[in-house]
C-alpha cells in the first residue's frame, strides 16, 4: 500500500511541476515571438488549451493520491479512536447548518469537504473543512476575492438544555457578524463576571440568563484552556441544544503533503494530532457529563 501511495505521490508531484513549468515557459516564448511577429499571438489559444489539460491532469492525480491517503491513513485512524465513524471525502457540513448559527457573513462562495461523523465517549460529533469566500470590487472596479473563513467546523451534542441561542467569538476574528451601533440582531452583548474571559471573547446571547447558565465559571475556564491548545481563532455557538465550534486555522486538515515521501506511521501521528482537537473539545469541555441532560 505504501508503495502504491508513493507511486501516486510521485505522479502527482511530477504533474505539479509540469503545471508550474509549462505555462511559464510557454507564455514567455509566445510573448517574445509576438514581439517579432504579432500574428503569432494566436498561439495563445492552443497554449491555453494545453495549460487547461495540464491543470486538469494534476488535479486528477492529486485527488487520487489524497483519496488513497485519506482512506488508508485518516479513516483508519478515526476508526481506531471513535465509534460509528462515517467519512465522506467529497461532502461537508451543509451551508444551512453553519448559516443558522449566524456567527458570520456567509459570503458568496461556500465549500466544504472531508465530512466525518462519529461518537466519542458516547457524544455524537460531526466535522468538516470549510471555506467561505466573497468576491468584492475595489474603487477602480477590479474584483478580488476575500476569504471570510477557512478552517474546521465541528458540531457536538451539548449536555445542557437551553432555550435561547448563545455565541462566543474570540476577539480578533475579522468576520464577526455582531456589533454596530444600529444592529438589529436579537443577540445582545453579555459581560460575564470573568474579566479575563471578557477580554478574550465577545459573548452575544438572545437571553442574558442563558449565557450565565451555559457559561459557568468552570466552562469559561475550560474554554480558556482550549484556546491555548488551538491554532486559530475560536468560535463557539450554542444553538438547538448543540454546540458548534469553528476554528479558523487557515488550512485544511487531513491533507497529505506532496513534497514529503510517504511514511504511514508518521502520517498516522500527524492525523492523530489533528484528530486530538475533537477529543480535546469533548474532554476539556466535559461534554460527556450528562448531569444536566434530561
Amino acid at each position: 500500500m505504501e508503495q502504491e501511495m508513493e507511486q501516486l505521490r510521485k505522479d502527482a508531484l511530477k504533474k505539479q511541476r509540469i503545471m508550474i513549468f509549462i505555462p511559464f515557459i510557454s507564455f514567455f516564448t509566445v510573448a517574445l515571438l509576438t514581439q517579432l511577429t504579432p500574428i503569432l499571438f494566436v498561439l495563445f489559444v492552443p497554449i491555453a488549451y494545453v495549460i487547461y489539460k495540464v491543470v486538469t491532469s494534476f488535479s486528477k492525480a492529486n485527488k487520487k493520491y489524497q483519496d488513497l491517503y485519506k482512506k488508508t491513513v485518516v479513516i483508519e485512524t478515526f476508526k481506531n479512536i471513535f465509534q460509528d465513524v462515517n467519512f465522506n471525502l467529497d461532502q461537508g457540513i451543509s451551508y444551512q447548518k453553519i448559516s443558522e448559527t449566524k456567527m458570520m457573513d456567509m459570503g458568496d462562495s461556500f465549500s466544504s469537504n472531508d465530512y466525518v461523523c462519529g461518537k466519542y465517549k458516547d457524544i455524537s460529533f460531526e466535522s468538516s473543512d470549510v471555506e467561505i469566500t466573497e468576491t468584492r470590487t475595489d474603487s477602480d472596479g477590479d474584483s478580488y476575492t476575500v476569504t471570510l473563513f477557512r478552517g474546521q467546523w465541528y458540531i457536538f451534542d451539548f449536555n445542557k438544555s437551553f432555550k435561547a441561542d448563545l455565541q462566543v467569538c474570540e476577539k480578533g476574528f475579522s468576520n464577526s457578524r455582531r456589533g454596530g451601533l444600529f444592529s438589529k440582531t436579537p443577540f445582545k452583548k453579555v459581560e460575564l463576571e470573568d474579566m479575563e474571559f471578557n477580554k478574550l471573547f465577545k459573548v452575544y446571547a438572545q437571553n442574558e440568563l442563558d449565557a450565565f447558565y451555559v457559561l459557568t465559571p468552570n466552562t469559561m475556564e475550560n474554554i480558556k484552556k482550549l484556546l491555548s491548545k488551538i491554532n486559530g481563532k475560536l468560535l463557539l455557538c450554542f444553538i438547538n441544544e448543540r454546540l458548534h465550534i469553528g476554528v479558523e486555522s487557515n488550512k485544511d486538515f487531513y491533507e497529505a503533503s506532496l513534497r514529503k515521501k510517504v511514511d504511514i506511521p508518521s502520517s498516522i501521528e500527524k492525523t492523530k494530532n489533528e484528530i486530538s482537537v475533537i477529543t480535546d473539545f469533548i474532554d476539556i469541555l466535559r461534554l460527556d457529563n450528562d448531569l444536566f441532560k434530561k
Partner: protein
Amino acid sequence: MEIVLIIVGVLVLICVISFIAISNGLNRASVKVEEADSGIDVALTKRYDVLTKMMDVVKAYAKHEKETLFEVINLRKGMSVEERIQENKKMSSNFEKIQVVAEAYPELKSSENYRTLQQAIVEVEEHLQAARRMYNANVSKFNQMLVTFPTSMIANMKGLKKKEFFQTEEVKKEDVKIDL
C-alpha cells in the same frame, strides 16, 4: 462676544447631553439589576417547588425520622436580598436533610420518582447559580458606576445607593456537584 456666547452655548449643550446620557446609563444599569433580581426570584421559587416535592416523597418513606423535621420556608414577594439569602439557606439545609434520609433508605434513593426529582434539583441549582451570578455581575457594574466620576456625581444627585450582592455559601460558588 458672539463667539463667546456660541462657545458657552456649545459647552452647556455638551453638559446637558452628557447628563442625559449618564442618567440614562444609570437607569439602564438599575433596570438590569432589577431584571436580574427577578431572575433570582424565579430560580428560588423553582428550587422551593422541587424541594417541596422531594420533602413529600421523603416524608412518605420516613414518617418517623427526626431528619424529616424540615425548616419552614417562607417565600413571598418583595423580600430583601438578605431575607432571600436566609430562605435560600433554609432550603439548602432541608436539602441536606433529604440527602441524609435518602442515604438511610436505599429503596427511596433508587426510586424513579426520587431520581427524577434529584435530576430536577441539579438543574434548578444550576439555574439559581446562573441567576445569582448574573445578578451579582449587574450589581457590580452598577456599583462601579456609582463610584466612578462623573457618573458618581449624577448618581448622588439622583440619590442612588449601592446595591447589595446576593452572597451564598462558598461551596455554592462551584459548579453543582450532587451524587446521583
